């Protein structure tokens, strides 16, 4: 059994950590947090130069042609650094949708642009409240144009293109949904930025008015493709969440060692020690579930749907738990804008909703476990 990343993959992780420590300090994150820039353009360029944006994109489409395990270790570091760039939208969602369902021409047009950092992509799925479900998709597609409103769309305000879920039928089945690719330059797209929990990753409302669109994948296959995309993104996001959880735990541990109260290090009080120990437990369970997700993703195993849901739930819970208790360990200082704790708290809670909320994935996991048990 070798249920671990290879030495090369660990080396890549170290490389990414070093790069991000240099280029993505909390100070750099704060430029975006404070609204002075929509995202960190310099960092985005650097990530492209390092080959991180296209790490899982095949060489024939301008990527590094490594694989999803390599992408997982980079994702972990992106989460640890709280990177203020549209990495998850572009790399986990848009690029994966193209890899799963794109035509050769579509892949040739967009994947090299993603790998080089020239194109930012996203997935436009949600229409207001609710979780991923075919019945929640109201935006219509007819005669090659889209009409409707998507909200919230992660990184929508800075995107060059989007994969859009649209209604092409009314049978009440999954086959009513098709995916489309919309180049924002083609017109008919209105974008409005929305304020959100985590300003280091923007959210937008996008109105499509006779927006020109080309089909992505076969008509009526939209929901099935989307499900695969969300499963892959669930694993990749889980690694970001694991990275964030670890960083929040580290911050709490470091502060508990530095801070003196009642004449001793606060980390010598059991109330604080045990809180940190419980954070370690959550983070460890999440990491192990995510490793299993990584294995399933990288081998395209039949176990992927169940593994992805388990990784998603476990990592969401761990990041929320660690980010929340990191503030608690810091006490009053943890509630200041000046300390970085709230950046992880914001990111943890925003990420918990991005691909569908926790309860949605809990529901998915039970369905998938039942399916397996029945088989």
């Amino acid at each position: 059994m070798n249920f671990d990343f290879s030495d090369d993959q660990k080396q890549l992780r170290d490389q990414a950590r070093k790069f991000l420590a240099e280029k993505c300090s909390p100070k750099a994150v704060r430029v975006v947090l404070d609204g002075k820039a929509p995202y960190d353009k310099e960092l985005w360029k650097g990530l492209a130069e390092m080959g991180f944006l296209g790490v899982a994109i095949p060489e024939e489409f301008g990527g590094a042609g490594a694989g999803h395990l390599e992408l997982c270790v980079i994702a972990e570091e992106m989460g640890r650094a709280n990177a203020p760039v549209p990495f998850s939208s572009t790399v986990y969602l848009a690029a994966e949708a193209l890899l799963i369902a794109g035509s050769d021409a579509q892949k040739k047009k967009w994947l090299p642009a993603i790998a080089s950092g020239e194109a930012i992509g996203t997935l436009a799925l949600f229409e207001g409240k609710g979780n991923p479900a075919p019945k929640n998709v109201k935006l219509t597609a007819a005669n090659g144009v889209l009409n409707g409103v998507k909200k919230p769309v992660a990184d929508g305000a800075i995107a060059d293109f989007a994969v859009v879920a649209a209604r092409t039928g009314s049978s009440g089945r999954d086959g009513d949904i098709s995916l489309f690719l919309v180049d924002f330059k083609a017109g008919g797209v209105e974008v409005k930025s929305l304020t959100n929990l985590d300003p280091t990753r923007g959210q937008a409302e996008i109105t499509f008015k006779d927006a020109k669109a080309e089909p992505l994948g076969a008509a009526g296959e939209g929901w099935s493709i989307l499900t695969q995309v969300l499963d892959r993104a669930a694993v990749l996001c889980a690694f970001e969440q694991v990275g964030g959880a670890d960083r929040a735990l580290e911050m709490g541990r470091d502060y508990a060692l530095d801070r003196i109260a009642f004449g001793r290090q606060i980390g010598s009080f059991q109330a604080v020690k045990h809180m940190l120990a419980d954070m370690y437990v959550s983070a460890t369970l999440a990491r192990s579930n995510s490793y299993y997700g990584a294995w399933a993703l990288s081998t395209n195993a039949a176990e992927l749907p169940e593994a992805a849901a388990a990784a998603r739930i476990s990592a969401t819970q761990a990041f929320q738990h660690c980010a929340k208790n990191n503030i608690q360990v810091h006490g009053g200082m943890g509630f200041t804008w000046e300390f970085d704790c709230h950046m992880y708290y914001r990111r943890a809670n925003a990420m918990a909703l991005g691909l569908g909320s926790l309860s949605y994935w809990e529901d998915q996991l039970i369905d998938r476990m039942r399916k397996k048990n029945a088989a």
Partner: protein
Amino acid sequence: MNFDDTPQEAAFRATARKWVDANAPKELHAELSKSSLGRIKLANHDIVEVGKAWQKKKFEGNWACLHWPKEYGGRDATPIEKVIWQQEEGVYGKLTQPFQIGEGMCGPTVMAFGSEDAKRRYLPKLASGEEIWCQLFSEPSAGSDVAGLRTRAEKKGDNWVVNGQKIWTSGAHYSDYGLLIARTDPNVPKHKGLTMFFLDMKSPGVEVRPIRQANGMQEFNEVYFTDVVIPDSQRLGAVGEGWSVSLTTLMNERMSIGARLATGVPELFEFCSNLMLEDGLAIDDPAVRSKLASWAVKSSGLKYTSYRAISALSKGERPGPENSIGKLVSGMMLQDIATYAMDLQGAAGVLTGSDEETVQGQFQQMLLSSPSMRIAGGTDEILRNIIAERVLGLPGDIRVDKDVPYNKIPTKGR
């Protein structure tokens, strides 16, 4: 990343599988396959009797205590080979319950601190199951703070004379030997006045009494010592070094207890899949699904954490500290799951007999037994301290009795 054996591991697994297939007591397979908490009970057999037979067969086939050196009854197996053996032994591993304390704790202590004569005399018989060992550490007033123990050993010529009481001794009533830690000097701080011994459990003055536990069962014992004589040749380590000797033993305790962890998740999943609530099956209820999913990912998280440790062993590395979470997570889960399953049963959940509504009271049994899972082998609080101190590097607790002579430490709270 893969779950495959290396060629050597695959060959070893094939050998082990073939041997188990040819030698295991298959008539017990169905009964052993049923999930169980705590002591194994067999309808028509005494666990010690069938356990001894299985252990003897394993010993003869060279599979008992296989990670031990050959000269002491093992086969010099590597840690990963031991894991593979356990996987192949499967449910029959439950038959080894009477020997686990000996194999996991007493044996390693004798191996580390015993004389060559003692090792050759005792270890092979421990491995073969011919002689069973128990561990005599905990006392009524020394649990988590085991170094505060009171049992006295006083030197008389070439012998030691022991007086005192131990508690929570698994298997004392069928054990041949016991590993005993006792206070040999009460005038120095508590950790410094302890010494480790082993003794014949049939020595005059040893009295074993079963404890009636909170769950109504009797699985553990109290052991009383009245002027019990132990030869100095049965001392393990130097006089006053008992604490550091005991750390060897306890380190092995947490490893061996963590090996097979019950979480209650498969039982709850099955229960919810069959339980009809007013609006349909329990497993179709969003609130039930949410709870079930949260527990399921804890359970899978533990499983894959152990896979990470196995992978480290396979590469010849030491597993990381992440395995320390196993008992902490599973103990709490068992208790929470039992409570929740009974909540779903409503008023009938109060019944503990062979009622259909409660599936023969399996969760009720789990509820009553689960407190012990959060205490035995390190309480939840001790485990959190261990994680905080050894994994996260936080300061140790402030110990007010550290430099106080043992006989000056207060013995009553109020």
